């Protein structure tokens, strides 16, 4: 039975990774999860300098999900290279580093610092809904996305995954723009912009007013978008959005995803990633599937 998948020449032992921002740098969950069992760990977004993030409250629960407006708090690329990469190298898993910035130059600065680091892939966050400057501006305009993808591809030594926003009119257009600019893969969906109001106090629950929605309730939207993107481009897709169980992961694979990521559900079940890995294997046995790659996009 083969669970290995390959994206841009990088081979992953299984198709399961973590959604950026929900798993820290892996360290935080290593008490619960044997990181070596995961296809890859995708780390929390890192910028060229430390970012303080947004005021609190930054998170709240909504029906079947949650909103967050962390604002990409991160310690900066230097600390990340000194502390987080060496930690992850203790495990037999691939490392996907999520990169954020406010300008093209800031993204490129991080990508250049990572050039000689032992990381396997870069995921470029052009879709965070919680940062005013840059970030999502690149992810909601096909031309801007194409431009930043080209600039990053010029500087990057590792394969580049562009992480797409669902907050667009046509996801297929954004996927095509990333592909045309040379992206090695795309990942989707980032969170869906939402809002929650405290009716007793007549105030926004989040200090940022809006936040990105994640959790099981967004899964149908994510599956549909992965399906549409898969039919628009030929580059591989990392699918995510509301994955809680192996059934959810298989849905994304059938919709066309090469890999899948567990996000907010890590907060609900710290073992969720490993349970998805095991569940996929059981599903393959049960259905006599020899190779996980054989069911990609196999929905009829």
């Amino acid at each position, binding site marked *: 039975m083969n669970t290995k998948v390959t994206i841009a020449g990088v081979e992953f032992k299984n198709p399961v990774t973590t959604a950026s921002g929900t798993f820290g740098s892996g360290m*935080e969950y290593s008490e619960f999860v044997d990181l070596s069992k995961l296809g890859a760990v995708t780390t*929390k977004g890192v910028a060229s300098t430390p970012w303080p993030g947004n005021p*609190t*409250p930054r998170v709240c*629960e909504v029906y079947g999900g949650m909103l967050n407006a962390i604002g990409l708090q991160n310690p900066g690329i230097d*600390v990340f290279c000194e502390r987080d990469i060496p930690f992850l190298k203790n495990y037999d898993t691939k490392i996907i580093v999520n990169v954020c910035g406010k300008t093209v130059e800031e993204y490129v600065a991080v990508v250049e610092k990572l050039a000689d680091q032992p990381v396997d892939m870069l995921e470029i966050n052009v879709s965070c809904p919680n940062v005013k400057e840059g970030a999502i501006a690149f992810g909601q305009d096909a031309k801007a996305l194409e431009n930043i993808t080209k600039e990053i591809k010029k500087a990057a030594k590792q394969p580049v995954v562009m992480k797409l926003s669902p907050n667009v009119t046509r996801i297929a257009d954004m996927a095509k723009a990333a592909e045309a600019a040379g992206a090695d893969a795309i990942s989707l969906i980032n969170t869906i912009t939402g809002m929650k109001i405290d009716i007793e106090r007549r105030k926004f629950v989040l200090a940022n007013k809006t936040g990105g929605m994640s959790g099981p309730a967004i899964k149908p939207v994510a599956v549909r978008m992965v399906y549409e993107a898969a039919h628009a481009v030929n580059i591989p897709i990392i699918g995510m959005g509301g994955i809680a169980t192996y059934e959810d992961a298989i849905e994304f694979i059938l919709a066309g995803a090469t890999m899948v990521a567990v996000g907010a559900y890590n907060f609900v079940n710290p073992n969720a990633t490993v349970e998805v890995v095991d569940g996929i294997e059981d599903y393959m046995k049960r259905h006599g599937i020899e190779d996980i790659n054989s069911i990609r996009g196999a929905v009829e």
Partner: protein
Amino acid sequence: MKKYEMGKVREIKSLAPGIFDMKVECTLSEYALPGQFAMLYPKSASTLLPRPISICEVEKGALRFVFRVAGKGTKEFSGYSAGDEIRVMGPIGNGYPLDAAKGRKAVLLGGGIGVPPILELARQLSEKESDVTVIPGYRDSNMFLKEDFEKYAKTLVATEDGSFGTKGNVMDAIRENGIKPDVIYACGPMPMLKAIKKYAEENGIEAYISLEERMACGVGACLGCVVKTKEPDHHSHVNNTRICTEGPVFEAREVEI
């Protein structure tokens, strides 16, 4: 070390309107410390996130949680019966530093639903130190855990409506009783903690305050529950620190509240 496991409700009862006392059998009890908390996971599919609940007392084989019904999750917990399963993760956070009370006059302040976490602290401090005073503050005469505190330490009470003890808050009780603490341990609503921070700074005394914030993961991954710090934090490298991991207890001077 944190554990994620299925616990079992040993006992549950109401202590006051909207306040519940639930003992949960779990192995976390073997090493939980005063001031730590646990994540309790509601079962309803309409909820997603676990609820951070402070540890009120550590018993043999069980943790005692005293919580207020504040939303869907705690409402669900309040309807549990003995024998029901409940998933728990923890113990989480640093807890109160017991050594700071060594040979000194320790005053423990709790306000509202911030009262429960100082009970285990009162118990453990009273076993080591003789000079422990506890002041729980309540809204009215619906007091909870008062008898529990009286077992361990000198207990004064403040009520906002003046129906028992000092009329006002815990700081009013300190002034009314002429108490001069060497070290303060506190948990309660933000206005109370701000007043304690100010009092401690003006009088040059140590104060360990337990903070709360909306939380998602409880393990330091999501960065949802941060508080501003005076100095850059060693982990985040910015002036923000994680309440769930570096806290929830901070020396009042370290945090900007």
